[in-house]
């Protein structure tokens, strides 16, 4: 799994490529935490390069949602593949954080 972090205004967009599985989930959690610890309270994950997410990956998403729940905080996902979107939808996670079709759509609302 590869993660590229880019600043967008006062937020951060993390573009992820590869599988988010039991091995790579901790690296994703660390990358997100680094962004939050550097003061960013708006995090968008671009999952266009992700074909698979395991329950370990879902746990990281929930932990992030829990950290970013103060007024003004934002946490969302964009550009999901069909398989990842399906898992996120069927688990009920769509009611915890926002899902966007594109990065532009997400940032327009921030």
């Amino acid at each position: 799994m590869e993660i590229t972090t880019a600043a967008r205004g006062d937020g951060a967009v993390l573009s992820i490529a590869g599988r988010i599985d039991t091995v790579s989930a901790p690296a994703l959690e660390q990358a997100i935490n680094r962004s939050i610890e550097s003061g960013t309270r708006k995090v968008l994950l671009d999952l266009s390069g992700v074909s698979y997410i395991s329950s370990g990956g879902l746990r990281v998403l929930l932990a992030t949602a829990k950290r970013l729940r103060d007024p003004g905080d934002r946490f969302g996902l964009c550009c999901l593949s069909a398989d990842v979107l399906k898992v996120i939808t069927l688990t009920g996670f769509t009611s915890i954080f926002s899902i966007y079709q594109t990065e532009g759509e997400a940032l327009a609302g921030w």
Partner: protein
Amino acid sequence: MPGCRDALIYPFIRKIDTLSSNSYLVRTSDAVIIVDPGGLPEQAAFLASIILESSGASTKPLVVVLTHAHVDHYLGILSVPLLADPATAVIAAQECGVEALESADRRLTQAALLGLEIAPLRIDLHLLAAADGDGGGEPVTHRYACGAALTIVRRPPETGLSHEQLVIGSGPPLEVYHTPGHSPDSCCIRIGGLLFTGDLLFAASPGIAGISGWNREALVRSLAGVRALLSRGGIEAVCPGHGRMLPVDEGLGMLDAVERDAGLLAGIAELDPERASRTAAYAEDCMEQVNELFTVMTGRLYYVSHVMDELGESETAAALHALIRGDVIDDLLETFDAFSREYHAGGHVPMTLALKGGQVINKLQRSFNHDELARIIDPALVRRAERLLDDYTTMLRGFDPARDTAMHDLRDLLQTCIAGHTLRSCTDEDLLDSADDDEAFGRMLLSRIGMPPLLGDVAVDLDLGTEQLPVLADGGRVLDLVTYLIEDLVGTGARAIAVRAGRDGERAVAAISGACCAAPSACDGKPRRFLYGLCERAGGALDAGGPGSSRSFTIRFASVI
């Protein structure tokens, strides 16, 4: 060594796999005996090095005895001269296995199933030869180039098992019992207080039962004979061909389980390379679906736990995590995925992948608390997961998954399915009714959060016509299939679905379509390969339309007029 003070045993116990068996090295006053040298050259070479190191200046005759002629029990010796050369070793095998070994029969030795090429193996001594009769014959001594003198004494059958003694000098005799079933030549060998049982204890296991040469009736007779042998005393431990050595009571317990399993195996299909390939393909299809189902089940539970935590119920939230071992499940799924990648790179034969699937599925079955989980998340989700795992185990065992085929009106099946996914399992009224009872309210709240109806926020256009559509189908599987298809649509963003039932010529047809997909470019329109097989087992044939922003699935059944 238990039961004979002058002998020593060196058990070489391996982690269980299909490549090689355990080996047991026994040193008596007059010989070194190897029971099953194993399938790998390095294992045989290691045994040879132990023999050379421990024998010092004295050279004792070396006798290799096979519990049966399967490659994982003997193939390693072919590349180790000390064990295979007539100048240094005598190789003994039961008569029924001799021809397979000497003619390099790939089928009976299981080389074909494991994708191995083999060379012939010379056998010096035929054990329990038919020509020797089945009663107290005269001792016959055979002398070999390596200096060994082996005396065979044919004995009357014991506990229903053909029996002979192999005497080597003044050491403890090897009591050889013919125990066919796993293979025609399978033997159990007793030396002192130990009984070497080869693969008898695994003979009814999925992926092993049904291999070439396997025979259920013979196995059942052999199991009864070995049970009597173990029950009458004198044997202190069982030394199986795979896995650790067992005390007798544990060995008897395993015999019970094998007998029980063998009782269910009437009519099993032969496990040949062709069936191994089909099972391996099915394993991959199943695991793809299992992967998604288990990730969704675990995620759903995490979601409920998260919401409870938000509501300040942190104790309940923590307890929920104990119902499913997300980390264990992830590891198991990852293990299979890695194994499957190796398989496609040419690293494994189909049989090994099929067995790996069985191993992973067996562990998955123990990784979640079925009943508790079904109280919190959608029980239909848990039931589908169970059925999926059961079907794979059935297939690996050599059977087609059972079909509960009956006459149904296709419209009723669709109506039931849609209603099940539209209604809340816990209504507002249920929730209000439970408000006076803390415990009941807690339960209701959990199921309300954990079981949102799949079609709760989805517009459903249902038109099932007015004409009855009788079909012969497995109703449970039709419901599972339609649910998987609806999940495919709703999960990828459909906010409206249409469900139709009608006729197409002589066929009854159900059509399910979704109005849009949030990521149309990412949808290839095809459902998983697993669903085509599921539809077939349900009694129908599945077709998919798409790709694009509108996706449709059609299920056709032969109509019964």
